[in-house]
């Protein structure tokens, strides 16, 4: 088969590899014969991540990006050698964990070498006293959590991509899980790391509870999107598996009431592991069967930990919800959330109707959160073809919130699905920036947000680019993301 029969979406500025056979031979020398492939069946398997527009392309027989080589290194030294070779040959290298990203972070936009991290899948050590687990970064999230649960622990990091994401991906995209109000986000959990720099140097950041020894250099790689280094090992916090869990749900008359209730809960330093507010449209979609939630805004909460603490948290949570006009809906909505939280079926149906869907998560401070929500909704509605724009609030802090917008639409006649997709993205991000929000909460930058980095970061973006240039002078590590926009204007 000739892969040219598949339309290539990212088809510009592809790297020209003069002597592909020579590079292949060198790669085989580094990682062993069996750990390199140029077979079409493998090349096609690594053309995309989990970006939702990618499902439309897959159905239409299109390829997002086309890598030249797939490699499966087994040691950090091998990764280091691949990077050195890539620098010599000026070939892009794209780290690939589980491919769960939704902003194009693992798409080989210019071709090059995919480094699949799946062979970095070991759990190296659990330290009960320190409450840490040390893992290789390619380990799948669900596999790690199942292992920890069996040993009596939880990692507490449960993103929606839990079944198909890796620790390395979590760190690279600075992800956040559903239980993060209690356990924190990935940056709160990483205590030590091994990172390989674009030129091949292997850095080992000590496992420490805290230090004042200079700036937090390691933080540069948390959220770096695989552009500044490849994470190979990490030591993460773990917790004893919670002995008790309480399931709470309240329906509020207005979105504002629900925000106010949750803000007050956090202000009292009560941290339910899970808090989720579903706006009126999402309440109909997800909790249409709950009579008390009709025409209301559903909030589900989960408190967990030791029994005495959970009891107190539940008591204060309930009091606060009721004080803000919440109507107790019992455990059923939370059970329903637990049962369905990973069931993604929409991606399988919407592309067949020619619909384009996606989710965009953003951060707001509390002060104007409700106004910003309405502002973004209205802005999105101005895009021709947009059918649905809804939101839930998925992450909470004493100072602000993370909103999760979902949109669906039909591209108008004059636009391709990709053009329509970009228009909705750009409209929403612009609205967020205009009203003072932050344009990405937990999916990372990748391709989709790269255009907006100078706006979000301001002058600091120049410094970030300078650091990138310093670490990766040949721009070989995951190019086409974060620092440059590959979307056409």
């Amino acid at each position: 088969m000739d892969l040219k029969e598949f339309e290539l979406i990212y088809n510009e500025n592809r790297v020209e590899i003069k002597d592909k056979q020579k590079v292949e031979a060198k790669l085989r020398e580094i990682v062993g014969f069996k750990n390199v492939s140029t077979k079409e069946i493998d090349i096609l398997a690594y053309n995309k991540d989990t970006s939702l527009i990618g499902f439309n392309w897959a159905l239409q027989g299109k390829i997002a990006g086309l890598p030249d080589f797939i490699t499966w290194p087994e040691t950090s030294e091998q990764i280091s050698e691949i990077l050195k070779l890539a620098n010599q040959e000026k070939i892009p290298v794209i780290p690939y964990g589980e491919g769960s990203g939704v902003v194009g972070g693992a798409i080989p936009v210019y071709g090059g070498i995919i480094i699949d991290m799946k062979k970095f899948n070991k759990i190296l050590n659990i330290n009960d006293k320190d409450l840490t687990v040390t893992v290789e970064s390619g380990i799948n999230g669900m596999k790690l959590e199942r292992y920890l649960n069996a040993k009596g622990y939880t990692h507490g990091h449960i993103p929606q991509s839990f079944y198909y994401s890796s620790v390395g991906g979590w760190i690279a995209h600075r992800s956040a899980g559903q239980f993060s109000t209690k356990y924190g986000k990935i940056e709160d959990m990483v205590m030590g790391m091994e990172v390989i720099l674009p030129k091949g140097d292997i850095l080992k950041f000590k496992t420490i509870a805290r230090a004042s020894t200079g700036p937090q250099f390691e933080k540069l790689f948390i959220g770096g999107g695989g552009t500044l280094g490849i994470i190979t090992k990490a030591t993460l916090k773990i917790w004893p598996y919670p002995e008790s869990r309480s399931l709470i749900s309240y329906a509020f008359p207005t979105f504002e009431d629900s925000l106010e209730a949750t803000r007050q809960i956090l202000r009292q330093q009560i941290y339910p592991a899970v808090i989720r507010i579903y706006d009126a449209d999402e309440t109909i979609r997800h909790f249409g069967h709950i009579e008390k939630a009709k025409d209301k805004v559903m909030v589900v909460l989960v408190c967990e930990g030791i029994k005495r603490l959970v009891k107190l948290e539940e008591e204060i949570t309930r009091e606060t919800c009721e004080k803000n006009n919440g109507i107790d809906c019992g455990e059923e909505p939370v059970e329903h959330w637990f049962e369905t939280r990973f069931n993604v079926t929409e991606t399988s149906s919407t592309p067949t109707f020619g619909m384009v869907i996606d989710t965009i998560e953003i951060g707001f401070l509390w002060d104007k959160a409700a106004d910003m929500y309405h502002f973004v909704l209205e802005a999105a509605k101005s895009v021709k073809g947009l059918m649905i724009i809804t939101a839930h609030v998925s992450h909470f802090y004493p100072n602000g919130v993370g909103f999760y917008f979902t949109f669906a639409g039909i591209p108008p006649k004059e636009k391709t699905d990709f053009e329509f997709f970009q228009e909705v993205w750009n409209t929403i991000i612009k609205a967020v920036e205009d009203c003072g929000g932050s344009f990405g909460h937990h999916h990372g930058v990748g391709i989709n947000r790269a255009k907006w980095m100078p706006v979000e970061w301001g002058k600091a973006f120049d410094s970030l680019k300078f650091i990138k240039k310093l670490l990766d002078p040949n721009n070989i590590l995951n190019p086409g993301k974060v620092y440059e926009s590959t979307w056409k204007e």
Partner: protein
Amino acid sequence: MSEILKKYKWMGPIIEKMDRDIKRIFMKNFRMRDKNYFPEGDYKADIKNLVNCMLCPNLCKFDCGTLQASLTETMSPAYKARIGYYLTTGKIDPTKKENKDFVDLMYKCSNEENCKVWCPFEFSVVSLLETVRDDLNDKGLMPDYCKQQISKLNKTNTIEEYNIFETYKEKGIENIETDGNDEVFYYIGCESMKFPEVVKANIKILKKAGLKFSTNLEKKVCCGGPAFNIRDMETAKEFARKNKELIESTSAKIIISDCPGCILTLTTRYEKVGFKFEKEIIHIVQFFKKLIEEGKLRFEKSTPEQFRKITIHDPCLIARNLNDTESIRFILNKIPDLEITEPLYNKEYVHCCGWSGTAHWADRDLAIREAQNRINELKETGTNIFITACPLCELGLAYGINETEKEKYNILDISELLIEIL
């Protein structure tokens, strides 16, 4: 379509409010959906569910045995479905020699059906791949490694190069021919014949329970399971016919087998091709459980020292196809002085031995790596004896143990443990 309309009922008002031009496009897309993506054609592939699977974010990938054995995206369930869809719709031409890898991928599944546990659509990937295999077979594209299995079935009536049932004498297995008046027919699997000690133990246990049963090894043939896996349905039906004749000749009301693959074939699979038995067909552990409950089997001796610590390996066909994780545990819990340990992945979440389905023919190394993965999980329990109840598991797991460790670890069928204490 009615299910889709029900599920997306909430979209009604949204569609009503749509811009006229957009609504027109949407309605057109709706009407053209089948033509665009599920075109009519001369194929048997379950194209709608292939699409459901290929457009899923791979929710089951973490528990897919072949993916975990290969550690490549290529082996991921959604990708297999995607290739199945492309082979069906002609995006990838299966008749071209250079596309052989893509055709082979349709056979790289160990039928463990772990995926079904996590699937929001509640199907298994192999159930989709089998429909793609149907079309490949119709086009004369059955891979050689599958043709070889069919050839063996036709030549020897078993899945071996020779009629393995004929070896019973040299293996010291007693053959009990039916007199047409049996209580039970002990249906011995082809692969079970590779483990004569297991078969002998089962016969001994059945005798101890005082049952009138037959084994009919002179007339015994394969259940046809491999042909069902390969989807050579003519061969599969022929074996169903032969077995129907054999089983009916015994007059036994209960058919028991030591091979869960045989049970699956004799029941669900035969029914699908029009052969149904009005008999109870159960796995031998389910039957032993009954015998214990009825007081017909008693454990009279204490467990010998060397067998006192064991780990259970649930055969996936018993745990997930027969939905029975209880029988093995019921029996083991009745054994005195036995310390039972469970591996991390057990019961309905068990990981496969690698030796089911077509993967071990399509890619033997892949199947061995799957077996090694499972052995590593079993070894983590710290015991040296792994108890199972499936000849394929015995076969597969043995491939997972390094030569240097063969002496250290012992894979036993539950019957081999039982005869030690009966």
